């Protein structure tokens, strides 16, 4: 059996010695699609930084994949400054910088791989356009292409559907599902909206008021479970075979 891609064992993560999240224990197995869900400020980004190796644990053991495992990362689109004069192809090419080398120029095969990655996410025609001129959904696809161009075994996405309309959301998530099925990529997706991952992730990690609840989507995505986690009445409805999480206005007493 292949070892887990990520393993958190009683991990505490935080900044300047102060823990933001504590007692985090979970694993991500090869081929998993894990949705890390929680409201803004719950500590999702802190766990994400731990996953990416940007934060060292204050406590506990955190095992990450070695350098032989390629990791693709899709940051929050809003973190990137649109003032940079970069085309879509320039941005995607950045995903190949480690292969190209520090001081070498990209070779034709690198450009071919960029074109293929753009083709894969459906925006090949936009390669020469400035990144800043794209719509939110197109920018997200561009960042996904950059993460995929290095043919990663693990893909980590930070709020990839933020500020997208319903069409944009489903396009990105369908794309992720395709990538996962075709290439067996392990996916960890961070989002603050449970509905976004309800129909795509195999497993959910729900972060609420400092507690992390992890389980298979099927078992966690029930009205009872979610009501217990969130401390308010939550129902899970099925519409056209797709699950939708509904929060009720009055808190449960």
């Amino acid at each position, binding site marked *: 059996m292949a070892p887990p891609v990520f393993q958190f064992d009683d991990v505490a993560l935080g900044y300047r010695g102060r823990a933001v999240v504590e007692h985090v224990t979970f694993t991500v197995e090869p081929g998993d699609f894990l949705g890390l869900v929680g409201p803004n400020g719950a500590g999702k980004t802190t766990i994400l930084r731990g996953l*990416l190796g940007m934060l060292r644990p204050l406590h506990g053991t955190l095992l990450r994949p070695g350098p032989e495992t390629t990791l693709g990362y899709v*940051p929050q689109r809003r*973190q990137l400054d649109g003032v940079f004069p970069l085309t879509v192809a320039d941005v995607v090419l*950045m995903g190949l910088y480690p292969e190209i080398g520090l*001081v070498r120029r990209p070779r034709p095969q690198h450009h071919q791989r960029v074109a293929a990655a753009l083709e894969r996410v459906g925006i090949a025609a936009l390669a020469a356009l*400035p990144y800043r001129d794209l719509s939110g959904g197109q920018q997200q696809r561009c960042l996904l292409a950059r993460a995929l161009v290095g043919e990663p075994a693990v893909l980590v996405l930070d709020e990839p559907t933020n500020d997208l309309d319903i069409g944009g959301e489903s396009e990105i998530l369908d794309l992720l599902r395709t990538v996962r099925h075709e290439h067996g990529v392990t996916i960890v997706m961070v989002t603050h909206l449970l509905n976004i991952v309800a129909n795509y992730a195999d497993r959910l990690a729900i972060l609420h008021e400092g507690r992390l609840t992890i389980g298979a989507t099927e078992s966690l995505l029930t009205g009872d479970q979610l009501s217990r986690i969130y401390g308010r009445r939550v129902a899970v409805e099925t519409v056209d075979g797709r699950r939708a999480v509904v929060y009720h206005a009055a808190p449960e007493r």
Partner: protein
Amino acid sequence: MLYELLHPFEALPASYLATVCLGLLCATLGLFVLLRRIVFVAIAVSEASAGGIAFAFFLASVLGIHREHGAEHDPWFLQVGPIALGLLFALAGMTLFAWRSRESRVPSEGTIGVGYVVAGGLALIFVSKSAQGLEELHQILAGSVVYISDARLDLTVVTTVLLLTVLALFHKVFLLCSFDEETARTLGYRAGHWSWLLHLIIGAALSVSLYAGGLLLAFAFLVLPGLTGLRLHDRWAPATRTAIAVALSGATLGAWLCWEISLPIGPAVAVALALHYGLAVVTGERGRRWLPIGFLVLAAPALPLTALTAYDHLAHVQLVRAPSGKASDGPRPEPGARKLEDMVRALQSEFPAERSATARALAARFGAPALVHLESLLEDLDVGVRRTVIELIGEIGGPTASRALRRHLDREQSDELELATAHALLELGDAFGFESLLHILEHGDDPFVREEAVSILRRSTGVELGFDALEDPQAPANREALDRWLAWWEQHEGRLKRDPATGVYR
């Protein structure tokens, strides 16, 4: 026609070469500064660098190291200390700002403001407590690449080549870390270290640019070419190319304006660069098509001109070998001897501005050997030209300069220029200037000139013997005051020595 066009570059090779180097370096780095939104950080770091330079002069005063008037070279500490400490302070400032920018509790602009105020204040305090450095600090703020020394030019060229090489080699990773630091980390780059290295490069470039060309020139090159490139292009490489073209074109146009209409080079280059940016703004979308090509065409003459001026400089410092492949064994030729004739001819120009600019170039290029030609300009009919030459002779210094200024005192008709000459003499350590100041008090027609003369007298002697410059010199109170000054002069004449630390004669 061609001669007329090329004349400024032939006459000011060192300053043109330095301007081109600063343009190349700052324009390339400017794109990173603009895109990382750290223009204000760069301004604060420049103040830190100025603080370092001022601190070096303060240290020199504390250690008793002083510049000798007329000496061929400054003491070693004064040659190396200011740039070394300026660089050190700039790098420390950049490191501090790079570190502080991660702290989110206070706005980063606040920290930058604190850095700017503290560094600027310390610079002025250090200079006020040292006997020298005021001129350097003034040059840093106003910019005076025209007077660049060989040592500063060498430093500028070497720094430019070194830093541009590092930038060219690692521009991909600098760009990635600037655009998306988190992704850079996931790709295996130590993004924090790369960003810090880029900050250090910017700090080093700023420090050298300030020392060589001054604040205005450095920031004009840092901001305007990059902005023009970003306005005209959506891609990194063309934006960089256009920024470099604008910098070269601006440097060439600025140097030409400096010579032709006797403008200070820093503002001249800044205006030239602003014209390029203005064109990019005014022409809008249409300009995006043809302006980049236009700028490349305008920049093209800079390449042969830079090559020529570089050759001139290298020949001047004797690095270029003789055609045989061996270093020339003969006596070292007079620096730039083939240019001296042309410049002396230009001193006869019908335009006062050209005569002034030529005088400046002569003084910057040849120093003391130019005195004989400069002295001839002391008889110029134009007051502005005479004033420039008096200042230049004072800056060159030495006994020959002192004698030339003394001779000029007998001939000068303008009270204002007599005062300037007397002041220059006193700055040179020649107490003969006092006699002239007293002459101005007694016979000067302009009360403001008399007031300045009294002020210089008080400052240079540390003595207060009265005299109301705004009143009639023949008024009884002023006559008495004048008698006291004359008695003081009679008592001290021939025995006064200037204290180099305080500038006061005792």
